[in-house]
């Protein structure tokens, strides 16, 4: 079966066709032969029956009258049928009466049958086989007038049947042969029609496979399944070809893009390397396993690493080498062995006196791998400069302290002077009130009453003066009460001012101790105090005050500093208004908060400040006032700064007025004065072991 499977399709189909053909022929011919045998046997029997019946009838009289000659003549008529090899007539008693044995028959065919075969055989028989020993043996009764008077025995040769069969066989064989030849030729022709496209297709496939040439096409020869198969194959080839082309285009594009990208990358790398080499820092990049990814030239030069060691790029070797140059070799190695932390910062003291900053920056690659970039910065010069600076600032501090004492003294005098102004005003007011007191009226009234003491009731009821006396007395009482109240208020103010002077003096005393008293202050109240302190000045100069206060939270600060600033600002504003010479003199005081800061603004419509003076108003010694000493704003700005806030000015120019803003942090800041902020010094993790890392100390 396998051999059949491996045969070429043509041969396979030919074999199948031949086999089918042969089977069909064999079946047909077998049927024909079988049918022929059966029908010729039947015909033979029929033939024998008709001949026998005729002979039996014709020989009846001869047998009845025992005319053997006549019987022989009758039997002799059988000679026309050369298939009859023998015939015998027996009488009723079974004795042989007449016989027919042609000399042409063989002895076996001629011989007289045994009596039992005569007895037993009868014809036509439904059960027995009349064909025995190669002969058809027939026995027929001979009857005369319905009475059986004898038996006819007839033996026929089956040679004809055999010959017929042989002829038939020859015929069938030749027909089969001829049919096979014709079928073979036909099938060759027809199969070629079926198989040729397949073979062509196979050839095309082989050509495509071996040459990889997808432009080949199979030729279609019909619209059958093979034709459709070829169509499908060609379509597939077309598809492959177009895909191929697309692929090729895409590959070309990709190559071009890769080239461009590679060039870009190379350029970036160049830039990167140039940048790396250009940095003042030594950079060493390590991967997750601590192996060296890259480093720059600066790294090698600052550590003085030999070229051959760099070329080998072994981290352990490098670390060991580097450690030998560090002052505390053991500590350095220990630190290097610890796992990295992002932002880790150390100062490294080298044996040769240099100081390096070691800064670790962890980096995560897109692949999730974590490596580290170690930065070394030579800060030897900076450390040296730092220490020099520290020394200089210490000396400066001492100098300035001495200078400051003078400044402080000036400030105290100034402030006390300011307050004394208010004290003077209060005193003047009180003495004015006392001078204009209605005490004389009281005395006159007392005299009047004493004069009319005898007829006092009449005087009080009838005399016009006496009638007005109670009204006058009550008016006098209320006037006296008002005078007293004003005097008391002025005295209270006087008392407050004296307290303020005390505070100023105390502040001056405490200035050396650089500490202040923190209080929780209501700023609206503080502004009110400031206004009261300037009340005389304001009234004297006819300045109206507009207040616009928001509800602001209380604030914790050094009260007298803020008070001093505000008093100073209001006084300056009233002076500016007076100096402007305009009729409407107004100061607007605002209080606002944005939740983080509190702003107090003092806005006047006075002389204003020229642009060039805006920068100088806070400078020590600057003043535009005839009798000013240029200390107030300078001191105020310093105080504001000490409270963590600021004092700023805004003016659109001369004649347009000015706005001063005191800005204070709502969250209480340390009132301790701090040294100026050092911007060159970020605050990374300082090595506590290195005193140089605390520049503010």
């Amino acid at each position: 079966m396998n051999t059949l499977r491996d045969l070429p399709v043509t041969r396979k189909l030919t074999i199948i066709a031949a086999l089918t053909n042969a089977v069909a022929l064999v079946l047909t011919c077998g049927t024909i032969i079988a049918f022929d045998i059966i029908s010729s046997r039947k015909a033979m029997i029929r033939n024998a029956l008709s001949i026998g019946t005729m002979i039996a009838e014709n020989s009846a009289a001869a047998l009845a009258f025992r005319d053997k000659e006549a019987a022989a003549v009758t039997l002799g008529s059988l000679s026309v049928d050369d298939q009859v090899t023998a015939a015998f007539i027996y009488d009723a008693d079974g004795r042989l009466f007449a016989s027919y044995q042609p000399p042409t028959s063989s002895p076996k065919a001629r011989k007289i049958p045994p009596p039992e075969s005569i007895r037993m055989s009868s014809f036509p028989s439904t059960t027995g086989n009349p064909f025995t020993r190669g002969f058809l043996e027939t026995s027929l009764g001979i009857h005369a007038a319905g009475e059986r008077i004898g038996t006819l025995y007839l033996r026929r040769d089956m040679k004809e049947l055999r010959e017929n069969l042989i002829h038939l066989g020859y015929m069938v064989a030749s027909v089969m042969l001829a049919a096979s030849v014709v079928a073979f030729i036909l099938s060759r022709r027809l199969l070629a029609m079926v198989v040729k496209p397949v073979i062509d297709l196979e050839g095309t496939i082989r050509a495509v496979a071996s040459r990889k040439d997808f432009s080949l096409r199979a030729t279609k020869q019909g619209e059958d399944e093979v034709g459709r198969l070829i169509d499908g194959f060609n379509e597939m080839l077309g598809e492959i070809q177009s895909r191929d082309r697309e692929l090729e285009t895409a590959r070309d594009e990709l190559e071009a893009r890769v080239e461009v990208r590679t060039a870009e990358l190379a350029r970036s790398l160049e830039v990167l390397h140039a940048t790396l080499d250009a940095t003042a820092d030594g950079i060493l990049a390590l991967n997750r396993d601590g192996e060296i990814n890259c480093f720059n030239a600066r790294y090698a030069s600052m550590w003085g690493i030999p070229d051959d060691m760099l070329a080998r790029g072994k981290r352990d070797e490098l670390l060991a080498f580097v450690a030998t140059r560090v002052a505390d070799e053991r500590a350095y190695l220990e630190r290097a062995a610890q796992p990295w932390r992002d932002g880790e910062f150390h100062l490294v003291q080298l044996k040769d006196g240099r100081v390096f900053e070691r800064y670790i920056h962890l980096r995560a690659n897109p692949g999730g791998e974590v490596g580290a970039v170690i930065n070394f910065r030579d800060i030897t010069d900076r450390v040296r400069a730092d220490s020099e600076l520290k020394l200089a600032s210490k000396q400066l501090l001492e100098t300035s302290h001495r200078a400051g004492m003078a400044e402080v003294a000036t400030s105290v005098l100034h402030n006390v002077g300011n307050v004394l102004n208010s004290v003077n005003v209060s005193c003047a007011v009180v003495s004015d009130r006392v001078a204009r007191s209605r005490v004389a009226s009281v005395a006159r009234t007392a005299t009047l009453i004493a004069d009319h003491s005898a007829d006092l009731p009449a005087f009080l009821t009838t005399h016009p003066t006496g009638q007005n006396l109670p009204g006058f007395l009550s008016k006098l009482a209320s006037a006296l009460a008002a005078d007293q109240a004003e005097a008391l208020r002025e005295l209270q103010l006087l008392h407050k001012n004296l307290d303020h002077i005390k505070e100023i003096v105390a502040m001056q005393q405490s200035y050396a101790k650089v500490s202040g008293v923190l209080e929780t202050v209501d700023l609206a109240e503080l502004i009110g105090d400031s206004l009261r302190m300037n009340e005389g000045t304001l009234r004297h100069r006819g300045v109206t005050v507009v207040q616009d206060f928001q509800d602001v939270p209380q604030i914790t600060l050094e009260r007298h500093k803020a008070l001093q600033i505000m008093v100073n600002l209001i006084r300056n504003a009233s002076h500016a208004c007076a100096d402007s010479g305009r009729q409407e003199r107004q100061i607007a005081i605002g209080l606002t908060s944005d939740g983080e800061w509190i702003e107090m603004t003092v806005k006047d419509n006075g002389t204003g400040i020229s642009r060039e003076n805006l920068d100088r108003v806070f400078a020590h010694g600057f003043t535009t006032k005839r009798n000013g000493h240029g200390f107030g704003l300078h001191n105020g700005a310093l105080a504001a700064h000490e409270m963590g806030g600021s004092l700023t000015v805004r003016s659109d120019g001369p004649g347009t007025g000015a706005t001063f803003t005191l800005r204070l942090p709502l969250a209480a800041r340390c009132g301790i004065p701090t040294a100026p902020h050092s911007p060159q010094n970020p605050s990374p993790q300082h090595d506590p072991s290195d005193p140089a890392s605390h520049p503010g100390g």
Partner: protein
Amino acid sequence: MSDPFPTRCGAGRWISRLATAAACAIVATAHAAEPSREYELKAAFLYNFAKFVEWPELAAQPNQPITIGVYRNNPFGNALVQAVAGRKILGHPVVVKQIHHAAAARGVQVLFVSAALDPALPELLQALKNAPVLTVGESATFASKGGIITFLLKDDSLRFSINAPAAHQSGLKISSQLQKLATQPAGKP
């Protein structure tokens, strides 16, 4: 068409066998000319003639017997009676009857007239004129006088001739087979 062999048994079979045996013996010893043997054969022939002849009136009467008459002189002795005993032809029983008068001869189907009665023949045949009676005789002139079948002895064998016109005249149908077996009458071309 039934086969008589398997069913045939009893006395009839034996008689038939004896008769046939006797006939054969007569044929074999014809030279001896023993009258009895010759007549035994002739008796068998008489019976067989009846088988090959058709009587027009018998066809309609199946039970009527076929009567074989022996005119006056009986040369058969008992042989004829034995030959027909128990036999039937197409259903008709066969009987033998002695006929003494010519007038009575008309009632039989077969009438045997022995040679000795030659002189009485014209009177007899005249009486049987146009009657359906198969006349069988022995003398050489029997046919010429109007008899239908005449026994002959030829080459030591018993043969017979048939006078076809006479048979035709009497209204009998004689089987062609019988006619074929018959010897042509002498004197006729």
